[in-house]
């Protein structure tokens, strides 16, 4: 009896998974976005100090297909998407798994707001989510932290952390680290909404591979994240194609790696060579396992993996 119950559960989950994968593929087929497959094992990878890589024989397992897909875009692929595995060492928890499924796609001549609209359409098409809302990073920080994230300083951030009873040992004096602490511990719990919610225009110091621009009095990154029922589902950029600025950011990240005693990573020169040819586009990476978790009503990734 127990065995057949368990088998039924697995079977119905696999059916759901198959259905969602088919819907993802038909969503992009209708929009003439081409499916691609890029290598999982690469001679270099994203140098972010917050990504811990698996490596063997001088090769890295990809932390995302971002660089490989941008190389395709720069050589004229047009709109593309990919469903693939990505790997991030030490990321394990209710909503994290070191090996996970990514859906990443790029749309030419979209800005980040155009792409937010498409992400919302994809969520509605695949898991029947209700209408989404959009709020700027500044807006939610002003409401829940009572600070302007583009004008704050380390002293003020530490005070807000203290007010919220957040004490963390060994945290550096980088304002972004403290903003991330406050965002994950104070703001994110408030984003546990019954509708998807997009957070856009991050501080320029958290731009990663996104463009930055002047917005009112502040420099902001044209970047967004989407939360649904308290789970962070996707991260998108209006993609930077300024190779000089990208090199500067890579060097800054490599310097941080050195400071943290993390292994260095060779700069992807081919990527930087091709970057000026990257068309004006926006791209987004979505955690497919979390999408399946939301669709199945499971409480943790362990239940569905």
């Amino acid at each position, binding site marked *: 009896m127990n065995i057949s119950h368990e088998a039924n559960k697995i079977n119905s989950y696999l059916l759901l998974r198959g259905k969602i994968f088919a819907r993802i593929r038909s969503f992009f087929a209708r929009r003439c976005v081409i499916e691609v497959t890029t290598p999982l094992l690469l001679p270099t990878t994203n140098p972010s100090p*917050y990504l811990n890589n698996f490596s063997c024989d001088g090769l890295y397992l990809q932390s995302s297909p971002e660089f490989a897909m941008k190389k395709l875009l720069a050589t004229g692929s047009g709109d593309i998407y990919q469903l693939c595995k990505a790997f991030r060492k030490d*990321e394990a928890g209710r909503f994290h798994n070191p090996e996970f499924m990514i859906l990443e796609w790029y749309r030419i001549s979209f800005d980040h707001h155009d792409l937010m609209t498409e992400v919302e359409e994809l969520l509605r098409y695949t898991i029947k989510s209700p209408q989404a809302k959009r709020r700027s990073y500044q807006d939610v920080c002003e409401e829940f932290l009572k600070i302007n994230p583009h004008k704050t300083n380390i002293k003020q951030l530490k005070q807000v952390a203290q007010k919220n009873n957040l004490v963390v040992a060994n945290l550096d004096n980088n304002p972004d680290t403290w903003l991330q602490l406050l965002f994950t*511990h104070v703001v994110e719990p408030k984003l546990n909404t019954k509708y998807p919610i997009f957070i856009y225009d991050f501080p320029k110091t958290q731009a990663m591979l996104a463009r930055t621009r002047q917005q009112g009095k502040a420099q902001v990154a044209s970047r967004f994240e989407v939360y649904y029922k308290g789970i962070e589902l996707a991260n998108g950029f209006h993609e930077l194609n300024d190779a000089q600025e990208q090199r500067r950011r890579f060097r800054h990240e490599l310097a941080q790696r050195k400071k943290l005693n993390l292994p260095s990573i060779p700069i992807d020169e081919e990527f930087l060579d091709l970057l000026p040819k990257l068309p004006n586009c926006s791209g987004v990476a979505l955690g497919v396992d979390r999408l399946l978790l939301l669709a199945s009503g499971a409480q943790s990734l362990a239940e569905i993996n």
Partner: protein
Amino acid sequence: MATISTNEFRNGVKVILDGDPCNILENEYVKPGKGQAFNRVKLRNLKTGRVLEKTFKSGDTLEAADAADVELQYLYNDGEMWHFMSPATYEQYTISKNTVGDSAKWLKEQDVCHVTLWNNNAIDITPPTFVTLKVVDTDPGLRGDTATGGSKPATLETGAVVRVPLFINIGDILKIDTRTGEYISRGK
């Protein structure tokens, strides 16, 4: 000293936090889309029993606590020290009145208790969940008043005072739940 990293924090792992041994109860991994990851950890201080929540930067380490949970048999006390023995190794342990604390009133010779040892010193003791103890003093039972009705205090052989039904007499053996201090039934 052995150290334990946040990604090895699991239920039951024992670490030292601010000088005190703690038992890890829960560990939640929290990471912004891009950026610094954190671990939100729930721990029980093994000395005070208090549960606390702490956030750590992912990858940070704490010193491992050389703590173990063992079963020890209670032998006797001399008013200051309570004496126990391991039924497995016959090793004897003395535990101070302070550490035994409130548990003292449930301890009967030869009962087996759950004891937390840190660096081989007892820091916490839990009496058996159910104990059977003899009534040494209580008001006489009222005739005709049986299973239902009120209750009265009774003093047990260990000195503990519990509320018992009116039909209980001196010399009766009672089963008590030590978590709540409540009378369960008459034993044999």
